[in-house]
């Protein structure tokens, strides 16, 4: 048989295979489906009005609050929570700690989908999304713009994660030669990916450096970029613990004969990492606090709100992680992960939305349409995640 014939038959096989895999599997009327399907449909209807009548027709954005939860939550918070991918690939491919090898695939998949959907939610917020290609192919690069760097790094990082995940897709499609080739690219993609992550995690913070007169002084400092980067490490680790807990319930049968002891070892390892990075982050926050002489700022409602974030959702979960690891109580580290995640959401929303123009009498709060579209983005991501893990070898490796 000549090469063309082989290629054609291979393509035919692939097409039939993908068609087979696209069909839904399993039960339809699960609680998740009952909630998510209507939400997604309503979200799509809202998006129709958003693109026809303008962003203002469905959001509460105004001339003083140009950014709402579509940026503050979907993009800025979502990207921080997706930090696990670069941390775990660092641990496994650079430090070569094989203990965590079994969670690499699912973590990278989560990271990739988070970027596609949450950074993708950016397009919903752009007034002229069809000009999106301008910073990429454009004749007008804004070299001195932090936003320019962040957008490039988003794009390149998504590509590196796609490369990191691609061997799994090739394995699923039974393309052994392709898989080998793609697997060879992994280390390079990982190293580029980590570098880009450091830059855009901090870059997201740097976007707000020029909003100095608008952000409450308890949340504004020249160190926002560093604070954003350091906190993305434990945000990512906490998210892996949180997602792992859910996956172990929902996708029990996919995990097959997995080793409960080994899984707990991984969770405690991640928790230890989270505890240490959280403490470093807390120490950094404290230094900024003293350096900027913020004592007199913590006596009003904004001060209490700040203390709630830094004590209640940073220091407390930090010690809970440490306690849980030391005494090997898995329940405590799981609760700590949730608290830490809430702390990240609070911090990112405080910088971008809540403490932004804190002096205003009339504040921005999201409209119900903004909330529904945000939920739509999250639910759609979970749908795609579920579709992939039930078909591709994500939880198990050959």
């Amino acid at each position, binding site marked *: 048989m000549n090469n063309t014939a082989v290629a054609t038959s291979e393509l035919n096989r692939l097409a039939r295979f993908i068609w087979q895999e696209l069909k839904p599997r399993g039960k339809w009327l699960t609680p998740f489906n009952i909630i998510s399907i209507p939400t997604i449909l309503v979200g799509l209807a809202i998006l129709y009005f958003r693109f*026809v009548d303008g962003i203002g027709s469905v959001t509460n954005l105004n001339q*003083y609050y140009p950014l709402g939860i579509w940026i503050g939550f979907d993009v800025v918070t979502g990207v921080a929570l997706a930090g696990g991918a670069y941390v775990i690939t660092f641990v496994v491919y650079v430090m*070569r700690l094989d203990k965590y090898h079994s969670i690499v695939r699912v973590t990278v998949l989560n990271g990739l989908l988070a970027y596609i959907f949450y950074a993708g939610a950016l397009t919903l917020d752009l007034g002229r999304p069809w000009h999106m290609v301008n910073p990429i192919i454009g004749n007008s690069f804004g*070299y*001195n*713009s932090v936003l320019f760097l962040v957008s490039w790094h988003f794009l*390149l990082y998504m590509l590196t994660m796609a490369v990191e995940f691609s061997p799994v897709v090739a394995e699923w499609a039974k393309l052994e030669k392709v898989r080998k080739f793609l697997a060879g690219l992994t280390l390079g993609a990982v190293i580029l990916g980590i570098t880009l992550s450091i830059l855009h995690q*901090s870059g997201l913070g740097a976007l707000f450096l*020029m909003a100095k007169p608008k952000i409450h002084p308890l949340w504004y400092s020249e160190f926002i970029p560093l604070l954003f980067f350091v906190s993305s490490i434990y945000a990512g680790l906490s998210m892996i613990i949180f997602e792992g807990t859910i996956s172990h319930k929902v996708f029990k049968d996919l995990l097959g004969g997995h080793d409960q002891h080994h899984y707990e070892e991984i969770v405690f390892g991640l928790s230890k990492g989270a505890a240490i990075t959280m403490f470093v982050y807390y120490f950094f926050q404290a230094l900024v606090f003293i350096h900027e002489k913020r004592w007199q700022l913590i006596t009003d409602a904004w001060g209490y709100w700040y203390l709630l974030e830094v004590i209640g959702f940073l220091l407390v979960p930090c010690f809970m992680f440490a306690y849980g690891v030391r005494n090997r109580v898995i329940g405590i580290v799981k609760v700590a992960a949730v608290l830490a995640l809430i702390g990240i959401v609070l911090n990112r929303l405080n910088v971008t939305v809540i403490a932004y123009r804190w002096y205003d009498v009339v504040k921005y709060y999201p409209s119900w349409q903004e909330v529904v579209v945000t939920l739509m983005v999250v639910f759609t991501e979970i749908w795609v995640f579920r579709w992939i893990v039930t078909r591709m070898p994500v939880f198990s490796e050959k």
Partner: protein
Amino acid sequence: MDRRQFLVTTATAGAVLPARNASAANATKETKEFVGVLVDTTRCIGCRSCEVACSEANGNFVPDVKSDNAFAQVRDTSEKQYTVVNRFKTDKGEVFVKRQCMHCWQAACVSMCLVNAMYKTKEGPVTWNGDKCLGCRFCMVACPFDIPKAEYLSWNPRIMKCTMCYERLQEGKRPACVEACPTDTLMFGQKRELMEVARHRVYNHPDKYVHQIYGEHEAGGTGWLYLSAVPFEQLGFRTDLGTTPYPEYTKPFLVSVPLILFGVPALLLGLSELTDRKKEVGESEGWTKTGASE
């Protein structure tokens, strides 16, 4: 790492440095001076001719100045009007103040923009280009004066702000508002000349003016300058903006980008070589031969 990606990244990163140096070189060679407008609020009578002229020149909403009772509240510029005049009750009676884009020397909106849609022309006005703009609205976040306004109720929103009538300047005319002002409140010229005029007025009438020219240093200096008889806080100006040009706030971050972009991959590649178990040798096979220490 795939090679294409690496080249693209390197090229992009590499391009950042020379571009910066080139712009620095231009700044020293440039002989043309930035233009601006001096606003003497002690002269303004609140006729709002500038509002009408501005909207007519730019095809915006033209206010009905005779009967809209606009002074009842303090207004802001909007997506419909590039400039508004407000009335403030102060220690020295009613004062009228025009508000519009300040055309900063180093504009925050320009340095925030990732596609140069917000653009500082070499003549001085900050303009907006709709063919490049993504509509991300980060210019609105960055602007310390809250000037850029978005058309939220349009499928194809524009960012609306004063352009100092850049097209009229190209034709050799003055901005429409300056042209329309009946009391010489507005004076158009190069900033250096305007500063001389402003200082001259303050020196000659030390009791009439507060001894501050708003815009001389605010946010690193602006194209529009204001003189006033009362402290500027009473006229709705923010006086807590500092004198640092706003793009300076992101400079430490931008400087560290190339360091990280090249330093971190080098470190990581080295690390991954060092930790490679396949290349590991036993302790006894290392630098020293077995038994050498005895």
